[in-house]
C-alpha cells in the first residue's frame, strides 16, 4: 500500500503530536498511551497539518534536508502508511 501524493493527511481525533518539554522529545499522544517519535518521524509529522497535500510535505522535507526526493518519499511513505493502518492518521 502507498499513500497518494495528493492526499491531505491529518491526525485522527484522539491522536496528536506533541513536544515534551520536560524530556525534550516529540511524542504521539494516543488513547491511554504515548509513543516517542524519533527525530525523523517527528520532522515528518510536524508537517502533517490537515491542509497541505503529501507532495508538498515531501518537497519541503527534500528541500530542508537537501536529500534526493525519492529517498525522502520512500521514508515518508513507510511511516505514513503504518500510521494510517494504526489509525493514528487519516488520509
Amino acid at each position, binding site marked *: 500500500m502507498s499513500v497518494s501524493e495528493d492526499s491531505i493527511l491529518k491526525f485522527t481525533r484522539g491522536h496528536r503530536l506533541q513536544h515534551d518539554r520536560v*524530556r525534550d522529545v516529540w511524542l504521539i*499522544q494516543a*488513547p491511554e498511551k504515548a509513543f516517542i517519535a524519533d527525530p525523523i518521524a517527528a520532522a515528518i509529522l510536524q508537517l502533517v497539518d490537515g491542509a497541505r497535500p503529501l507532495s508538498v510535505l515531501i518537497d519541503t522535507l527534500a528541500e530542508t534536508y537537501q536529500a534526493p526526493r525519492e529517498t525522502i518519499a520512500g521514508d515518508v511513505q513507510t511511516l505514513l502508511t503504518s500510521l494510517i493502518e494504526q489509525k493514528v492518521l487519516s488520509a
Partner: protein
Amino acid sequence: MSFAPPPMSLLAELTHRCPLACPYCSNPLALDRRAAEMETADWLRVLDEAASLGVLQVHFSGGEPMARHDLPELVRHASKLNLYTNLITSGVLINDVTLEALDTAGLDHIQLSFQDVDEAGAERIGGLRGAQEKKLNAARLIKARGIPLTLNFVVHRENVARVPEMLDLAHELGAGRVEIAHTQYYGWGLKNRDLLMPSAAQLEASTEAVVKARARFGNSLAIDYVTPDYHADQPKPCMGGWGQRFVNITPSGKVLPCHAAETIPNVVFPSVTTESLGAIWQDSPLFNLFRGTDWMPEPCRSCSLKEVDWGGCRCQALALTGDASATDPVCARSNQHALVMEAATAGHDGEFLYRRFRAI
C-alpha cells in the same frame, strides 16, 4: 538518593462515590467520603504541578468521576496544559448535556466500562437496575460526537464465557479499542477472590477468543488483553515499576505509586494538600520505598528479570505473604508460590461482598 525520571501518567481519583457496587472494584475497602474530597482549586493546582513535572496523560477516574460537577472544569484546565485527558467512567451519568460539557472542555478519550453483555449478569455485578441500557446509550452518544472510545470489560468466572460477545459488542458499537481485563485481586476484588477466580480452562478459552477476534477484526478494533496473575508463574511489572511511570492521587489527596498502595504498613502517605507533587515524587519515603532494585530480597536480587517485572506487585506480595518487600508470590521462583496456586483453585462458595461505604 538518585534522580527519578518524571511520571508519565496521573490517575486522578476524583471521588469514591459511585452508583455501582462492583465486587471487584479496585478502590480501597475504606472509601473516602464526600466531605473528605479535595476542592476544585486543589485539583486545578495538582494538574498544574503534574504538567510541569512531566505527566503526559491524566486519567480522570474514581469511583465515578462524573459524580463531581467540576469535572468539565478540570478537563478544560488539563487540556489547556496540553495534558491528554481520559475519562474512565461507568457511563451511567452520561447524557446529551453532561457529555456535551465534557466534549467542549476538550476531552480526548473515554474509557467506558461494562460489567457484562448480559443484562442480568451486569446487574448482579454492578447492582444498579437499568444500568446496561444507560451504558449502551452512552456508547452511542459518545460515538455520535466522535469522541474516541474504549470499552472496558472486567472478566471473572461468572462472565468470562461471554468474552466473544463482549468483543462483538465493542465492534458493533464502533469502539476503536476494547480492553478485556481479567480481575486483579486488590481492594474489594481480593475480598471476593474465590467467587471471581476463573478456572484454568476458562482462562484458556478467553485467551483463545481474543486471538480469534484479533484475526477477525484486524485494525478495526484494537484489543487490549490483561491476563490474570494467579494462573501465571511470572508476575507483571506492576505499574511499570514502583514510582517509575505512574502516580495515583486519591479523592482526599493522598499520593500513591499504585491504587492499592494504601495497604502498605509503617509508612506515611504523602498528600498534595501539604506538599508539592514534584517533591513527593522525588523525595517521599513512600515513593522511594520500592523504587529501582536496591530494596529487593532474593530470589529477585540475583534474577535476570528484575528490571523486567521489578519483582512484581508490592501490594500483592503484602496481601498474600504479609510482607510487602517479599518476591511477588505469583513468581514460580518465590518460595511462597504455593499460596497463589492454592488460591487459583480454591472453592467458590459464599456471597459477594459488594463495594459500599461502610456504616461508621
